[in-house]
C-alpha cells in the first residue's frame, strides 16, 4: 500500500460555542513528505495540529469530518485506543521547548518515557537510546546531556532535545508546530537542516506549521495557506510561491523590501552617547567596551543572536542594569547609571517598549488609564486637556478612540503593541528603545508596526534604538546598524554600507542564515556550511 497517505483529513470542521475555528479542512500527507501549513496567529493552525492527534481543546467540538492517521480514524477511537495511537504513530514538536518540557524531570527520563511505557525498556538501555539520538542531533556531550534538567540547557539545545523526544517512538508522522520561531537565525538553520534529514532518513511524514513563509518554502514539498480557519489555497511549494492564486497569498509572498529608510539630511546631533560602557549582573560584566551614538531622527538597529547582550545594553541605557564602567550622556548631560538616580525629566526623555505587550500592559487597567498615566505624571494633563491628548495619541497609533475604554485582554497582539507605543509617546520622549517589539507578531502585523514607527519618526524628532535578531528586517528601515556578539560590538556602520558589503564574518553569517523564499536557498546554505567545515 505505497499510496496510502500517513495522514488524511476529510472535511474537518471544529467549532467552539459561538465561533467556527476550522471549516472544511481536507489534506493528505504522504510518507517522506513535508507538508507546510502557513497562517497568521488565530488562523487555526494550532487547533489543526491538535486535531491531527485527535485532541480538542476544552470547549471545542468536532462538527464534521474525520482525521485518519496511519489507518486509524481518530475521532472514532475509544480513549485508550486513541492514546495508544498517539504513543506509537505520531509525535509533536512544540514551539516553546522551554514550556513543553516538564521542569521536574531530567531530560533523558522524559525523552524516553514512551520507550519505557510501550516496550518496558530498562533505564540503562533507555539512557543509551537517548544518548544515540543526542549524538545524531549534534548535542554536546551526548552521554551526559540527558542527565540535565530542562532549565540547565539553552533554548536551541532544548529544541533539539524535543526533536529527540519526537523520534523516540519512531513515529509515522511528526508535527512541527513553529519549532524555530523562538530561535536565532543561525540555530534555526541548524534545526531546519535536521528536520529535513530526519524526514528523508526515516521516511516518515511531517507537518510543518509556521507563520514564516520563507522557512516553510525552504522545507515543505507542499504548502497550505490557512486564514480564519479556512483553506485559502494549497499547492506545490514552488508553484504557490511563484504563482500565488489568491490575493492573501500574494500579500504574504510579496517581497516586502519596499523603501530603504530615507536618509536624514546633514549630520544629526547625538541624543544618547555611550562611551566605553561595561555592565552586567551581580558583578559580572556581560557586555563591555560598548561605545555608540543614537542620533536624533535616526533609527539605530541593534542586531545579534540571543545571548549577544543586545537586551542587556538596552536595559543598561534604560538604567536597569548595574553599570561597571564607562559613561552615558543624554543630550550632552551625564546620565546616571541607576534609574533611581535619574531625574524625572531624564526618565521622561527615555522610553522603553517591550517584546511582549501582554506582559507590559496591566490587564486590569483600561487603555485610558494606561496611556493617561504618563500624560498626567509627566505632562500634568487632566480633564479635557487629558482627553484631547489621549484621543490624539490614539489617532497617532491608528487605533479607534473607542479603544480607550477597553482592557488589553480584548485587543489583538498588534493592537496591544500599538498601545505600548502610545504609552511611550505620551511621555514625549527623545529616545525610544524598541526591544524586539515585532518578533512576537505575524509578518503582516510586523510590517504595519514598522510602518507606524517610520511615520511617527517623520512627525517628531525621535531617536529609535531598534533591537532585533533579524538582520534582514532592519535593511528596510534602519539608518545605522550595530551588530553585537558575546557582549561586544562587532560592527557598527550606516545601514546602506553594511548591507552593501558586510565586513565581519559574523555579520555575513547572520545575513546568510536568514531564510529567503528563493528556491535552492537552503541547499546553497548547507553546501556553503559544509565547504567551510
Amino acid at each position, binding site marked *: 500500500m505505497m499510496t496510502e497517505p500517513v495522514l488524511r483529513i476529510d472535511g474537518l470542521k471544529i467549532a467552539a460555542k459561538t465561533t467556527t475555528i476550522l471549516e472544511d479542512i481536507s489534506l493528505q500527507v504522504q510518507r517522506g513528505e513535508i507538508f507546510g501549513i502557513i497562517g497568521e496567529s488565530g488562523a487555526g493552525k494550532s487547533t489543526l495540529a491538535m486535531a491531527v492527534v485527535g485532541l480538542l481543546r476544552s470547549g471545542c467540538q468536532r462538527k464534521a469530518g474525520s482525521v485518519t492517521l496511519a489507518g486509524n480514524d481518530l475521532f472514532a477511537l475509544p480513549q485508550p485506543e486513541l492514546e495508544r495511537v498517539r504513543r506509537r504513530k505520531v509525535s509533536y514538536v512544540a514551539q516553546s521547548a522551554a514550556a513543553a518540557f516538564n521542569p521536574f524531570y531530567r531530560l533523558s527520563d522524559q525523552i524516553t518515557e514512551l520507550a519505557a511505557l510501550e516496550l518496558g525498556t530498562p533505564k540503562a538501555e533507555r539512557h543509551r537510546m537517548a544518548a544515540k539520538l543526542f549524538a545524531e542531533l549534534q548535542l554536546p556531550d551526548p552521554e551526559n546531556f540527558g542527565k540535565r534538567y530542562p532549565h540547565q540547557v*539553552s533554548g536551541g539545545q532544548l529544541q533539539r532535545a524535543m526533536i529527540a523526544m519526537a523520534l523516540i517512538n519512531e513515529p509515522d508522522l511528526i508535527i512541527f508546530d513553529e519549532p524555530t520561531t523562538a530561535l536565532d537565525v543561525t540555530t534555526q538553520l541548524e534545526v531546519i537542516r535536521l528536520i529535513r534529514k530526519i524526514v528523508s532518513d526515516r521516511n516518515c511524514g511531517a507537518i510543518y506549521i509556521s507563520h514564516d513563509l520563507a522557512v516553510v518554502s525552504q522545507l515543505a514539498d507542499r504548502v497550505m495557506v490557512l486564514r480564519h480557519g479556512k483553506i485559502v489555497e494549497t499547492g506545490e511549494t514552488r508553484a504557490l510561491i511563484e504563482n500565488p492564486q489568491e490575493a492573501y497569498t500574494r500579500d504574504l509572498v510579496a517581497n516586502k523590501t519596499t523603501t530603504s529608510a530615507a536618509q536624514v539630511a546633514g549630520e544629526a546631533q547625538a541624543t544618547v552617547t555611550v562611551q566605553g560602557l561595561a555592565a552586567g549582573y551581580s558583578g559580572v560584566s556581560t557586555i563591555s567596551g560598548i561605545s555608540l551614538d543614537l542620533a536624533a531622527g535616526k533609527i539605530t538597529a541593534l542586531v545579534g543572536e540571543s545571548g549577544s547582550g543586545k537586551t542587556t545594553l538596552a536595559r543598561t541605557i534604560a538604567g536597569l542594569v548595574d553599570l561597571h564602567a564607562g559613561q552615558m550622556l543624554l543630550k550632552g548631560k551625564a546620565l546616571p547609571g541607576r534609574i533611581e538616580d535619574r531625574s524625572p525629566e531624564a526618565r521622561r526623555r527615555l522610553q522603553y517598549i517591550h517584546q511582549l505587550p501582554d506582559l507590559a500592559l496591566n490587564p486590569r487597567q483600561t487603555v485610558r488609564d494606561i496611556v493617561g498615566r504618563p500624560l498626567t505624571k509627566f505632562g500634568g494633563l487632566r480633564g479635557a486637556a487629558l482627553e484631547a491628548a489621549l484621543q490624539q495619541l490614539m489617532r497617532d497609533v491608528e487605533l479607534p478612540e473607542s479603544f480607550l475604554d477597553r482592557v488589553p485582554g480584548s485587543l489583538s497582539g498588534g493592537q496591544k503593541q500599538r498601545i505600548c507605543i502610545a504609552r511611550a509617546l505620551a511621555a514625549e520622549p527623545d529616545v525610544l528603545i524598541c526591544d524586539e517589539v515585532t518578533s512576537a507578531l505575524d509578518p503582516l502585523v510586523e510590517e504595519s508596526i514598522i510602518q507606524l514607527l517610520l511615520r511617527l519618526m517623520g512627525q517628531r524628532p525621535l531617536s529609535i534604538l531598534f533591537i532585533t535578531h533579524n538582520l534582514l528586517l532592519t535593511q528596510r528601515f534602519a539608518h545605522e546598524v550595530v551588530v553585537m556578539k558575546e*557582549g561586544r560590538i562587532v560592527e557598527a556602520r550606516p545601514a546602506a554600507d553594511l548591507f552593501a558589503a558586510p565586513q565581519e564574518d559574523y555579520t555575513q553569517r547572520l545575513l546568510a542564515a536568514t531564510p529567503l523564499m528563493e528556491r535552492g536557498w537552503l541547499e546553497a546554505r548547507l553546501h556553503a556550511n559544509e565547504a567551510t567545515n
Partner: protein
Amino acid sequence: MSTAKRPPSRPIRDFVISRSLSGLVSLILVTALIFIGTAMLPGDTASALLGQNATPAALEALRQDLRLDDPLYLRYFGWFWDVLHGDLGVSLASGRPVSEVLLPRLQNSMLLALVASLFLLPVAIGGGIAAAIWKDSWFDRALGFTSMLFLAMPAFLVGYILIYALSVRMGWFPSMSVAPLMGGVGPWVKVLALPVLALVIIGQAHTMKLTRTAILSVLSTDYILMAEVKGISRRRIILLHALPNALSPILSISILTVAYLIVDVVVVEIVFSYPGLGKLMVDSVAYRDLTVVQACGLFFALIFVAMNFLADFLAMLANPRQRVPARGAV
C-alpha cells in the same frame, strides 16, 4: 556568553544561611514586640499580682524584685540574656519555673496539632486534587461551597455546635477536654476528638483551595499538553506529570497549616478548655504572669519561624529549578 569565573553557586547552602539569619532577626523583633506589649498592659503589675490589699512596702519590694522600675530595654536585654542561657525565669503567679509550667502545655498543643494534621492534610490535599481533576463538576462546586462555609464560620461557633451536637445531645465525648491526661489511649481519644474535629473543619479550607489552584495551574501548562499529545494516560499525567510540579506549593501550605494549628488555635483551646499553649498565654495575660506570657510569645515565634523555614526549605528541595544551579548552557 563569556563571563568571568564565578564561585560555584550552592543554592541550598546559601538558602540555609540567609534564612537562619533572617529567622533570628524575626525572633528578636517578635520577642521585643511582646515585651513592649506586656509593658503596655493597663494597671500596675505589682498590685495586679499582690491584689488590692497589699501593703505599699510589699508592692515596693515586688517592684524591686521584678526590676519593674528599670527602663524597658534594660529589662528586655536582661531577659534575652537569661533566655540565651536557657533560663526562662519563674512564673509570677505560681512561683514555679516557667519551663515547668510551659513544657507540658507545649506538648499538649503539639499533640493536638499533630493529630489534627494527620486528619486535616490528607482530607484537604486529597479534596483539592479531586476538585481540580473534576473541575466545575458538582463535586467541585459542593466541596468549594462547604469548605468556604466552614472557613467563614467563626471558630467558637463551630466549637459550640460540635459540643452541642456530639457532646450534649449524643453524649459521645466530654464537652471539656480536661480529662486526666494519663492512662492509655482511650482517654486521649475522648479528650482530643472534639478539638481535632473542630480544627479539621476550620483549617481545611485554605489547604484545599490552594492545592486545587496549584494542581489547576500545572494542568494548564504546555508540558501537560505535551504529555497528552504523547498519549500518556490521564491517571499517569495527574500522578507523575502534574503532582510533582505542584508539590512545592502544596508542601508550603501544608506546613504553614501545621504551624497555624499549633499557634493560632487559641479560640479552639478555650472553647474546649484544652490545656494547650494558647490557653496558657491567654490565662497568663489575665493574671499578669509576665514571664509566662513572654515565654509563650517566644515559643510561638520560634514555632512559626521554624515552620516557615521548613516550608520554604522543602518547597525548594521539591523544585529542581531552585535546587540545581542552572550553570548555563553546556
